[in-house]
């Protein structure tokens, strides 16, 4: 027994059982007692069917769509940050965060859209909270998008710099995606043939990742510390093209191709963790380290480090803008919302398992160590060479990140086109908006302090979740139902995330203050090449202080308006 406990197997199995309880017991209770769903109550998909935004979609299709829309790097790389506290706190947060908060948000935000004529988050905030909070939400989302982009651009370029061959592998996927897009949408080729081609493209990309590493090694060696900056520029060019090209030519076929390695990767890792006792893969991480390691205090940092695997505000945007409008019957909300979120928890579990089997020295400060752990878990029972698995999981990481980042860049562009009007309309221009939506995050990413930016990302992402849950609570109060199941996590998430954002702002502000008073540039949050230029590093840290303050202030303002609306709803509902 002790041997089994020293492998990821039982822990992962225990988490799966907990998710089962969350789905079959807790979510069912909320579904039946709070929302009182009925298959006979017409949904907006039927009431307002226009064949474009509103149309009923079968639950399995919506489940797949919801899962793919919400799964990104958050659950894969979050555990890397969280494992600084040991694997047990990370595991507990993935289990209980998802069990009591994660699925609650995803499911409930689908339901508020379904019960409110298919309205998205913005109109719902306008209806239940007011005009001003909707504008604040807009400002908040602008900062949020910049932070997501900065983190993802940093990480993709890092993976290209750390794993030679991965860029060419990614390029192979991109080229095949463009061809597949053409085959699917122009020539209307057979879907099975195209799927086979997509799978072959992934295999070819892995082979290229293993065999053709020379050119990238040469570039990385020649550029040294500047290699990652070079890859950032290359990535920005790709993202620029993806953002301005029509969706069917680039983004959507890439999403199609990326589905296969993404699915395969998760399945391989979960099975690897479950069979670990049989193949001798053991836990090498400490169960618990300390409350206050270098990254910051366990409270609140742990709770924002693992974003999407436990709870994520991004999901509320997906649930309200698309899924809620296409729900066939109300009883589908649970398998789609709760089901997809709990599945994403499995993605986080699989990533955590990959870190659990590495020693602290192997993990070190290397975010890329996920690939090493994933390789160990997979090769132990599937065989194959380490080089092959390394190439596969490096590609797996990049593909997850780049498919989301292309969408985020495009979102920023379309967003800018909508909000910049009048004298500022030039900022909404297709090319200008894409350019600004890439230059600002690249500048942020160049600072190299991704660790700190990750906390900003997690903090703002989870604060959005807290705000969405608060909105859910307001609507439930208006329905004259008990709101505790949504209100308690809303309060917890709001306190935790605002504390985390204040903490991270303090980290930057402290560096700025020490630099100003002592001239010691080593306290600034920056890495080479930026850290070699103290003035530039100082300027970036000042910018990050401003970003942190903006996020905190906007978050506090939203909280104030939501709490006021909640109290008003309580009074009016008696």
């Amino acid at each position, binding site marked *: 027994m002790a041997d089994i406990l020293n492998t990821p197997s039982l822990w992962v199995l225990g988490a799966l059982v907990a998710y089962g309880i969350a789905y079959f017991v807790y979510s069912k209770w909320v579904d039946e007692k709070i929302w009182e769903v009925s*298959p006979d109550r017409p949904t907006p998909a*039927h009431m*307002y069917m*226009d*064949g*474009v*935004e509103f*149309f*009923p*979609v*079968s*639950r*399995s*299709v*919506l*489940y*797949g*769509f*919801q*899962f*793919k*829309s919400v799964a990104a790097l958050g659950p894969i790389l979050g555990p890397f940050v969280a494992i600084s506290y040991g694997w047990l706190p990370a595991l507990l947060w993935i289990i209980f965060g998802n069990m009591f908060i994660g699925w609650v948000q995803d499911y409930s935000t689908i339901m508020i859209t379904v019960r409110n004529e298919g*309205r*998205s*988050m*913005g*109109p719902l905030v*306008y209806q239940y909270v007011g005009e001003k909070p*909707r504008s604040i*939400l*807009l400002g908040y*989302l602008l900062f949020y998008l910049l932070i997501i982009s900065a983190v993802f651009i940093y990480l993709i370029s890092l993976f290209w710099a750390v794993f030679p061959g991965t860029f060419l592998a990614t390029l192979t996927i991109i080229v095949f995606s463009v061809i597949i897009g053409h085959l699917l*949408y122009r020539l209307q080729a057979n879907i099975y043939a195209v*799927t086979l081609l997509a799978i072959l493209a992934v295999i070819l990309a892995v082979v290229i990742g293993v065999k053709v590493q020379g050119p990238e090694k040469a570039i990385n060696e020649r550029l040294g510390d500047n290699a990652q900056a070079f890859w950032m520029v290359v990535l920005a060019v790709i993202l620029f093209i993806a953002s301005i090209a*029509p*969706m*069917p030519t680039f*983004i*959507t*076929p890439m*999403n*199609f191709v990326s*589905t296969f390695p993404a*699915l395969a990767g998760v399945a391989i890792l979960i099975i690897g963790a479950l069979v670990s006792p049989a193949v001798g893969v053991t836990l090498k991480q400490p169960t618990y380290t300390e409350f206050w390691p270098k990254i910051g205090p366990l409270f609140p940092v742990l709770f924002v480090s693992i974003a999407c695997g436990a709870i994520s505000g991004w999901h509320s*945007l*997906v649930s*309200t*803008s*698309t899924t809620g409008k296409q729900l*066939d*019957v109300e009883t589908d909300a649970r398998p789609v919302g709760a089901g997809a979120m709990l599945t994403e928890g499995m993605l986080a579990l699989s990533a955590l398992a990959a870190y659990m089997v590495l020693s602290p020295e192997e993990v070190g400060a290397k975010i890329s160590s996920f690939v090493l752990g994933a390789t160990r878990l997979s090769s132990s029972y599937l065989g194959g060479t380490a080089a092959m698995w390394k190439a596969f999981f490096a590609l797996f990481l990049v593909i997850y990140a780049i498919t989301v980042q292309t969408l985020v860049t495009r*979102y920023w562009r*379309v*967003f800018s086109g*909508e*909000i910049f009007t009048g004298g500022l309309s030039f900022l909404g221009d297709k090319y200008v908006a894409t350019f600004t939506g890439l230059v600002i995050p690249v500048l942020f990413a160049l600072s190299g302090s991704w660790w700190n930016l990750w906390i900003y990302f997690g903090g703002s992402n989870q604060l959005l979740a807290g705000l969405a849950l608060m909105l859910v609570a307001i609507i439930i109060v208006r329905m004259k139902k008990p709101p505790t199941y949504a209100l308690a996590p809303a309060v917890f998430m709001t306190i935790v995330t605002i504390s985390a954002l204040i903490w991270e702002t303090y980290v930057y502000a402290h560096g700025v203050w020490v630099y100003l008073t002592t001239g010691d540039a080593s306290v600034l949050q920056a890495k080479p090449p930026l850290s070699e230029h103290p003035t530039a590093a100082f300027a970036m840290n000042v910018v990050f202080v401003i970003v942190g303050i903006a996020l905190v202030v906007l978050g506090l303002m939203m909280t104030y308006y939501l709490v006021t609306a909640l109290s008003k709803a309580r009074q009016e509902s008696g």
Partner: protein
Amino acid sequence: MPLFRRKEEKEEKKGEGGLKGILYGMAVHGSVTAFLRTRMYMEHLFMLMTLGDMLGFPIIPPYYSLKLLPYVVPNIKSWKMRMFRERDFTDLISG
């Protein structure tokens, strides 16, 4: 096999969907939604061009508008519904 179907049809075809539906949802549904939106914006433009003179925008001569009218009439209801629906920045996330 149609992947989108009304509730009544769904009851008749119980057991469909499953893994194929999930894979379809993961790989293609987002794209389908995006294409439908692209087509929607094109159709808005087309409707504005064909019905423009009736709305005060004389884009093409009424003679041609009248010739196209029978093809446009069936779409007027859903066009109105889409045009009048409230949209904001949080809707943009879906394409």
